[in-house]
């Protein structure tokens, strides 16, 4: 929901589509829906009860899937398999212990499913994108194969039958129904809780931009593992109830890809990433599924309907029903108003004190890079680069386009691994550690083309980073408490505090750069790497950037800049490293660099005339031949 400048007096459309109004309407609808749902077995229609029970099972599965697919953005076509695993667990145990009610096995069904999920997560620790989807398909087939062939345990393709319910007929479906409703409530509660914790923002960060998430300290593989496990625990339980309801489990019915598809379709229809979307999706989809079957009597018709629905959804309504409705409401509500992004930034305010102070030893190199090599196929982008960044300095890395500057940055921040060479930070070699570990050590970086998490608000973007990794932290509230306060202070510091509830994609480029800087600052890094901080922004903002950098540096933060804006660099930085064709060709103070013939030849040009004053320091420079 966007804040906006309100013209005097709202139109009726705006009043009718106000966010608060709709929040209450939504709540009212929910209460009504919940009451209808809980009391549904009162309905005299047995087949409607059956539909609702199936819808509940799929709603629980969809709500679970939402965690790994909706929040974290990893499409899993294997959710049906976990439902089946839960069902089989219940069936196997009830066959082994015929005197115990199958309901007793429901929790175990959840645990077993979660264990399988964690194992699968370990197997897919570093897989992403297409590979991940393919593996989930393979997993479903694998489980089906095991169920079909491990006769002693699963009874093979014959399947396992469960006893009929042992309660009086008058109770009807109430036990099944109530257990499923409880599971759905628990699943939604967990989903809601995840969303508002740091764990949840971390997952969404992973979805929006996994690479970026790594650089702000989010350990994607561990998050994925947790998400995967959590996404299946209630699904496994629902599966155990489902198997009992059907009184029969067999490999073909329980592990068909179609089952996974229905669950995915429910999530997409309702709206992935939203809390209620998957539930709505399931309750829309299951009746459609039933209707397609009974009314038109044909498995083929059902396939056509489901296939067409999926295709149309992807092409026309990819966000799903609920998010699209929300966007529509928002669009109607803010029509004709002016967004905040057009507003001029106000830089008259003085800079408040920088966040963190730390001692500095200028003789010690905070960062050392030695002999870095990185090739892409035949292209040697970085060819033996060696330089240091003294602690407490503002060091610049300049050079022509294609000299390998961004690649060096990527190598230092951990987005890529070098083919050869070492990187030593604060005395520790970090050449082979993961990006998030480097962030935890104290390296922060910004990107030339800003990489914010577009769907999150500015505040959420700034609270997303993790200074270090503790499980306890994951459960803490994301946008409340001490973290949020800190984030707001930082937003103040960089000057975009007004925008804290604006979704990041609504900001202008310059504003995004400031937010990215705040994101990095919350990590309290020792070294901040800025990739073209002065690029693409207006002069006032450039000046502001310079002031921010100076203030932070005064308090002890070391900077490494890549920049093309020579006045900016020469007025701010000392020492300077010049990179050309993948190697450092000159180092020294701004004055020395300006006069170095190699630098003039490779980059600045013979006719380079400096207009501003350059900054000189007494840091000893390295001349040629001393590298």
């Amino acid at each position, binding site marked *: 929901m966007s804040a906006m400048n309100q013209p005097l007096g709202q139109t009726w459309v705006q009043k009718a589509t106000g966010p608060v109004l709709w929040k209450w309407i939504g709540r009212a609808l929910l209460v009504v*829906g919940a009451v*209808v749902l809980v009391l*549904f077995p009162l*309905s*005299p*229609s*047995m*087949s*409607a*009860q*059956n*539909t*609702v029970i*199936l819808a509940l099972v799929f709603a629980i599965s969809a709500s679970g899937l939402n965690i790994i697919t909706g929040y974290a953005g990893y499409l899993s076509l294997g959710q049906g398999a976990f439902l089946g695993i839960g069902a089989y667990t219940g069936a196997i145990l009830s066959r082994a212990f015929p005197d115990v009610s199958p309901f007793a096995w429901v929790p175990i069904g959840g645990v077993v499913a979660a264990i399988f999920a964690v194992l699968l997560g370990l197997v897919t620790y570093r897989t992403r994108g297409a590979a991940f989807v393919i593996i989930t398909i393979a997993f479903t087939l694998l489980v089906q194969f095991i169920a*079909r062939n491990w006769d002693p345990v699963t*009874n*093979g*393709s*014959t*399947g396992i*039958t469960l*006893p*009929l*319910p042992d309660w009086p*007929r008058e109770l009807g479906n109430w036990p099944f129904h109530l257990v499923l409703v409880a599971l759905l409530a628990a699943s939604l509660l967990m989903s809601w809780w995840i969303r508002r914790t740091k764990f949840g923002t971390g997952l969404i960060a992973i979805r929006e931009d996994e690479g970026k998430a790594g650089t702000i300290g989010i350990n994607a593989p561990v998050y994925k593992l947790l998400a995967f496990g959590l996404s299946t625990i209630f699904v496994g339980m629902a599966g155990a109830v489902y198997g009992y309801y*059907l*009184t*029969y489990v*067999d490999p*073909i*019915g329980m592990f*068909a890809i*179609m*089952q996974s598809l229905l669950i995915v379709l429910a999530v997409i229809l309702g709206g992935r990433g939203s809390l209620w979307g998957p539930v*709505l999706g399931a*309750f*829309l989809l299951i*009746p*459609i599924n*039933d209707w397609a*079957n*009974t009314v038109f*009597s*044909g*498995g*083929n018709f*059902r396939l056509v309907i489901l296939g067409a629905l999926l295709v149309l959804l992807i092409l*026309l*309504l990819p966000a799903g*029903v609920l998010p*699209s*409705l929300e*966007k*529509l409401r928002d*669009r109607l509500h803010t029509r004709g108003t002016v967004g905040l992004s057009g507003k001029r930034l106000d830089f008259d305010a003085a800079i408040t004190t920088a966040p963190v102070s730390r001692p500095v030893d200028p003789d010690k190199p905070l960062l050392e890079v030695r002999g870095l090599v990185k090739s892409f196929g035949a292209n040697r982008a970085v060819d033996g680069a060696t330089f240091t960044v003294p602690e407490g300095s503002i060091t610049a890395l300049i050079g022509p386009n294609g000299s390998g500057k961004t690649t060096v940055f990527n190598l230092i921040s951990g987005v890529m691994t070098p083919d050869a060479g070492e990187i030593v930070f604060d005395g520790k070699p970090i050449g082979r550690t993961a990006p998030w570990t480097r962030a935890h050590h104290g390296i922060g970086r910004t990107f030339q083309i800003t990489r914010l998490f577009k769907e999150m608000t500015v505040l959420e973007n700034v609270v997303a980073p993790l200074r270090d990794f503790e499980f306890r932290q994951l459960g803490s509230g994301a946008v409340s408490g001490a973290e949020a306060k800190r984030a707001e202070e930082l937003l103040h510091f960089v000057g975009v505090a007004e925008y804290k509830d604006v979704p990041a994609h609504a900001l202008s480029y310059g504003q995004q750069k400031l937010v990215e800087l705040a994101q990095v600052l919350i990590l309290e890094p020792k070294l901040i790497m800025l990739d073209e901080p002065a690029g693409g922004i207006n002069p006032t903002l450039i000046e502001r950037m310079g002031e921010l950098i100076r203030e932070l540096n005064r308090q002890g933060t070391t900077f490494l800049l890549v920049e093309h804006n020579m006045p900016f660099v020469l007025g701010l930085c000392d020492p300077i490293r010049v990179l050309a064709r993948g190697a450092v060709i000159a180092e020294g103070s701004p004055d020395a660099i300006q006069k170095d013939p190699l630098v003039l030849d490779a980059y600045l040009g013979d006719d380079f005339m400096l207009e501003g004053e350059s900054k000189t320091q007494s840091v000893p420079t390295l001349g040629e031949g001393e590298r």
Partner: protein
Amino acid sequence: MRKPALIRSTVAVAALAAGALALGGCAADAPSGDGSTTETITIGTSLPLTGDFSQGGENTLQGYEVWKAIVNENGGLLGQQVEFNVVDDGSDQNTIVSDYNYLIGEAKVDLVLGSQSSRLNIAASAIAEREGYVYICPSCASPDMFNRGFSMIFFSQQATAAEQGTAFAEWILGLPDDQRPATAAYPALDDPFSAPVAAGVQAILEEAGIETVYSDVYPEDLTNFDTIATAVRDSGAELVVQGAQFQDGVNFVRSLNRVGYAPKILYQSSSPTYGEQYLEGVGAENAEGVFFSASYTAYADTPGNAEFLAKYHELYGDQDPPEDAADGYAAAQVLQAAVEAVGSIDDQQALADWLHSNTVQTILGPISWNADGTPNGVFLIGQWQGGTAQIVFPAEAATTDTVISTWRG
């Protein structure tokens, strides 16, 4: 612009759907066909008309339709015309569960008949049992169908899977020493019906000393049997007993040809019962001498068979009715017998009780049941001879005295 309009219509759809759900839940299932007050009796059934079992499902439906035609021509059931409410389950278990919930709960049918294939029937029968409806299934031969303590289920063929090859096994054992095969191979389809048939025969033959040189189960989606045929060839088995459903049996025979191997005696549990389709699939010369288990033969002098054949030819043409059609007809016959004996359709328990204590004469022969719903009877063994599917054992039911001793003559 396109988008807002679409969103608006989505809202409309969503609202409608939610409304429909609520209404559907509140509306009592519309009563229809309440037996005693209306003129027709409705029988509900779900069949696999599409999907993996569609062949069998369609054939079973033919059987039901033939029965309906005959009954209605003769004044109906208890004086009322019979109607069927048929739903397609697409060979999918979850669907069949919904289907029977729909038939019993919403469409409120008077009686139900079962589906085709053990997998589907196992799931569906639980609903009928829960709701107290008699459930007669034309093809649910898997032993797992009957080990749940249900009291309302009845299998309307002569024997369950494990017994269906018994008469054939006994014939093998009865052969003179120089003709009896010494080795046997048992490839079988991995499903609740076919595998037990082969296993049943294997148990009998192994105990009598016939060596098993190959035994394996293959999955349903296997279509290329060349490697299996090679393995069978390499084993040198003189007798091949295949637990086959339909297409797999056809493919296996074709692979045997490609591999260039012909066992002395070939038995396939179900494939050869598909009449013309089987003949066309394997080719007439390859069908010659193939043994199979059957519940039905068109040449038997069983009650109602003549009528059944006549009506079948009238509705569906000159070819012999496939086994599934006859099984469907027999299931309906069983239901009819119970209803007519009890005299009403209101008390399903009475129908069940009657069936437990009586024998029904069907076109498959006489069938009676044990307490668990399994039938007491002897399954027929047939053999393709000269383009005709004859019954060869047991002697009482045999339609010919000839038995071709080797495959392909």
